[in-house]
């Protein structure tokens, strides 16, 4: 980064009335990464401005260059990155204009954390696990503002209050791992605000969080931006979030800015085809009102799809679960005794019919993943009856259950971690066939592997490649092919599309629906994304604290949600329409947990029928 710096003092541009008062003005910024195969251009002539008190959303899919732009502004680019042209002008508190790209490391460091604050995406990994929250909060203020420990602590407690952390004193003394994801992200925001920055860069700050927590965080950010009149650069891939929070939107694709506009104008009349494509791929809550069967996402340039075939509920169900319980012991105290248990799944019952998609929704910690895993015996169940096709699974021994696994498969959330990097894709798909002795050798499995790859929209030639050669969406297709290998009747998809970009997400969901039509597959679709669930599900079950609080046909449940928790979940979903922005007041309650004393039995759940196959938990 050193040699090219000096030759790059671009001429000052004519003063633009729109940007004359800008806090941050990026112009013609190009950045390239040096690699083993030559340079890769990450940014090409990027330009936009952020004014004080304004929230600018930087939107695009992964690899579009939004994070590189923010890291360049912060001076945090990796060592192999080079700024090849352009300026990043910042008007500092002293009123002078500096080019952040040309600053010395030392000068840039002094601005970072004091005038420029940044919030990162991953609240779970962005806090230092071995340092107390209080220490991490105060260190920047002590360094930049020269506060003594007592003053820094007072300011930290005050800032924790501003991000609405209850019991700030307690949080101050904890380690990060003792806090939930939502709390950690609040701590991150408080940390960025400690020195009262003038520009705040938030890089996907809510992507890893539950919708209800996301709604809180967005509201906090908006409040703070109003109170302190700071400029916010908000990086996201979620158009719903953009509609909720942004004043202006900058759309990036492949390292370039393709469109920028006021948020209302951009949503009302997107000009660039890429913007239109992004907006089309956004699932909008309420789109499916009045449609009873799931419908695949419309794809640009393709005729609208037929709805999924209706489910015949007069048949016996494929899967029946009754009074299923899963508990995880918590050890504590000097003796390490089990004193409490997490009642992850508490006497849950549900049925699933052939060719049906049942969505399981709820916040993290609601027990939805544990329920899915316990069906496949990936989590130990304490009690309950599970039958598939009339056969009792819970009574089978390990060997008997292994034979049944071919009927019941799973697709996991992380397409990067769920494929073995050292095995070819073909082998990963063939492995279940080999284990279940459907084929005698890898060679014999090849025709089936190739057919499976074609079925999920990949080429047969891909069988010889390794997982790292594929994108996230392709990997998830491979994981689906692997799950399909044994022609199962039911696949549990645990947040299977949550890690994917919007447009890829839509494609993978359409694939899942196509497979359902062709093979009469039943999906248990575990997700926290209500808008996606509205697209794919025939029926929906809402889980909270290990219990199903409401279960019913998707249309009825979304149109007339009966349980307060279902309503809260639906209310928290961002609406991808800036004209419908709501001034919400959200309660600040921390989500309760399903942690109970050992052996404690909650009163048995009782349900009230509110419609056809629509049941609500009676709280009492």
């Amino acid at each position, binding site marked *: 980064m050193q040699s090219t710096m000096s030759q790059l003092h671009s001429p000052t541009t004519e003063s633009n009335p729109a940007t004359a008062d800008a806090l941050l003005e990026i112009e013609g910024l190009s950045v390239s990464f040096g690699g083993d195969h030559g340079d890769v251009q990450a940014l090409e002539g990027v330009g936009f401005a952020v004014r004080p008190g304004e929230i600018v959303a930087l939107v695009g899919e992964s690899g579009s260059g939004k994070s590189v732009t923010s890291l360049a502004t*912060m001076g*945090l680019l990796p060592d192999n990155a080079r700024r090849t042209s352009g300026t990043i002008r910042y008007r500092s508190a002293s009123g002078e204009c500096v080019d952040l790209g040309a600053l010395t490391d030392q000068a840039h*460091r*002094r*601005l*970072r*954390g*004091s005038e*420029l*604050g*940044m919030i*990162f995406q*991953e609240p779970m*990994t*962005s*806090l*230092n*696990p*071995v*340092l107390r929250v209080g220490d991490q909060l105060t*260190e*920047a203020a002590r*360094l*930049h503002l020269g506060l003594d420990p007592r003053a820094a602590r007072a300011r930290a407690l005050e800032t924790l209050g501003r991000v609405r952390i209850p019991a700030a004193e307690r949080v101050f003394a904890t*380690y990060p*791992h003792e806090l939930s994801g939502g709390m950690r992200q609040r701590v*991150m925001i408080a*940390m*960025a605000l400690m020195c009262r920055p003038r520009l705040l860069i938030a890089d996907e700050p809510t992507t890893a969080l539950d919708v209800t927590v996301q709604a809180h965080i967005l509201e906090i950010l908006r409040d703070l931006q109003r109170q302190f009149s700071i400029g916010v650069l908000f990086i996201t891939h979620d158009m719903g979030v953009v509609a909720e929070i942004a004043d202006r939107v900058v759309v990036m694709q492949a390292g370039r800015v393709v469109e920028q506009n006021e948020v209302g104008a951009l949503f009302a009349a997107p000009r660039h085809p890429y913007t239109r494509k992004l907006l089309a791929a956004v699932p909008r809550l309420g789109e499916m009102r009045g449609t009873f069967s799931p419908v695949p996402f419309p794809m640009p340039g393709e005729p609208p799809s037929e709805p999924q075939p209706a489910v015949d509920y007069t048949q016996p169900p494929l899967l029946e679960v009754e009074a299923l319980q899963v508990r995880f012991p918590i*050890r*504590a105290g*000097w*003796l*390490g005794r089990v004193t409490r248990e997490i009642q992850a799944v508490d006497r849950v019952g549900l049925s699933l019919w052939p060719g049906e998609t049942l969505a399981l929704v709820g916040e993290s910690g609601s027990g939805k993943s544990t329920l899915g895993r316990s069906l496949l015996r990936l989590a130990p169940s304490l009690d309950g009856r599970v039958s598939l096709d009339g056969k009792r699974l819970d009574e089978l021994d390990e060997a008997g259950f292994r034979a049944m696994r071919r009927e019941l498969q799973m697709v996991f959330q992380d397409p990067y971690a769920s494929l073995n990097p050292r095995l070819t894709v073909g082998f990963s798909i063939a492995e279940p066939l080999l284990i279940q002795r459907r084929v005698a050798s890898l060679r014999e499995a090849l025709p089936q592997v190739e057919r499976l790859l074609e079925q999920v929209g990949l080429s047969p030639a891909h069988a010889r490649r390794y997982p790292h050669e594929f994108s996230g969406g392709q990997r998830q297709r491979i994981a689906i092919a692997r799950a399909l290998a044994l022609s199962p009747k039911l696949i549990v998809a645990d947040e299977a599309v949550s890690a994917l970009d919007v447009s890829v997400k839509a494609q993978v969901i359409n694939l899942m629906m196509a497979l359902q039509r062709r093979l009469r597959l039943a999906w248990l679709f575990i997700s926290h994304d209500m808008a996606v669930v509205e697209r794919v599900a025939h029926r929906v079950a809402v889980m909270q604290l290990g219990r199903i609080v409401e279960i019913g046909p998707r249309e009825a449940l979304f149109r007339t949600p009966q349980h307060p928790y279902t309503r809260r979940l639906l209310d928290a979903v961002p609406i991808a329409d800036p004209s419908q922005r709501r001034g919400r007041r959200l309660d600040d309650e921390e989500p309760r947990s399903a942690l109970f004393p050992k052996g404690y039995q909650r009163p048995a759940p009782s349900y009230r029928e509110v419609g056809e196959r629509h049941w609500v938990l009676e709280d009492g």
Partner: protein
Amino acid sequence: MLIHGLKRLLGMIPVLFTVSILVFAFIKLMPGDPARIYAGADASLEAVEAARHTLGLDRPLPMQYFDWLASLAQGDLGVTYRTRQPVSEVIGASFMPSLWLALASFCWSALAGIALGVFAARRRGRWQDYGAMGLAVSGISLPPFWLGLLLIQFVAVPFGVFATSGFERPLDLVLPAITLGSAVAAVMARFTRSAYLEAANEDYVRTARAKGLTQRMVVWKHTMRNALIPIVTMLGLQFGFLLSGSIVIETVFSWPGLGWLLIESIKSQDQPVVQSLVLLFVTMFLVINLAVDLLYGVINPTVRHT
């Protein structure tokens, strides 16, 4: 935490028990007649038989084992066959020189290894990195007795400041400690480098930089505090190695320590000393491992309270 420690302490008992059986069995498998050594080279056949009886060596092997175990439980390690001193006195005299040597080697090699590792990691891919790691590889590859001989030949002999053998003054520690610690320093340098690089890649280090912290705070507070977690584990293993692995170096420098005592006792078939020494080495290793595990809980808050 306390209960956890006590549990681990109790868990050492079966391990020690098993080891005692193995040690006893192997000693009895060794060729040669300990009674003859006890009685002396010129002793008559009757004297040897009398010695065999006094030492209980004519009793069945299981009885001998239980005798040994019983006196061990009372803190009685027996007498050496060579000099007829109590074994505990002999080992006690050799223990401190070994401990001093291990501590001196450990201190310099841990500090130097960690410093070199951090230095290399922070200049990854540049010539300083390659230089430091080249040095580390040669430290690992150089046989310790060879390095010891070189030091004696080219440092001790020409300058006369350091002794070539024995342990009379603290200064005598220098050359053996350099020899013994060099392999550990090299291992620690390589290990620290990779642990540092792994920690430096973590999101929280980026967060620390985004806060505008000084380079020193980012490196030592945010990165090293985390990198230290695996490093401490490694240091514990290395300390055990230093305490028991000094046989070669103690021989080269005629160091009056445990390693030297072990070699001498094996040479003269002094069974009680060999038995006690092996058991002592195993115990030290277990204790160090336990200490490391407990320390691990202190430096890593996420495993505390479990």
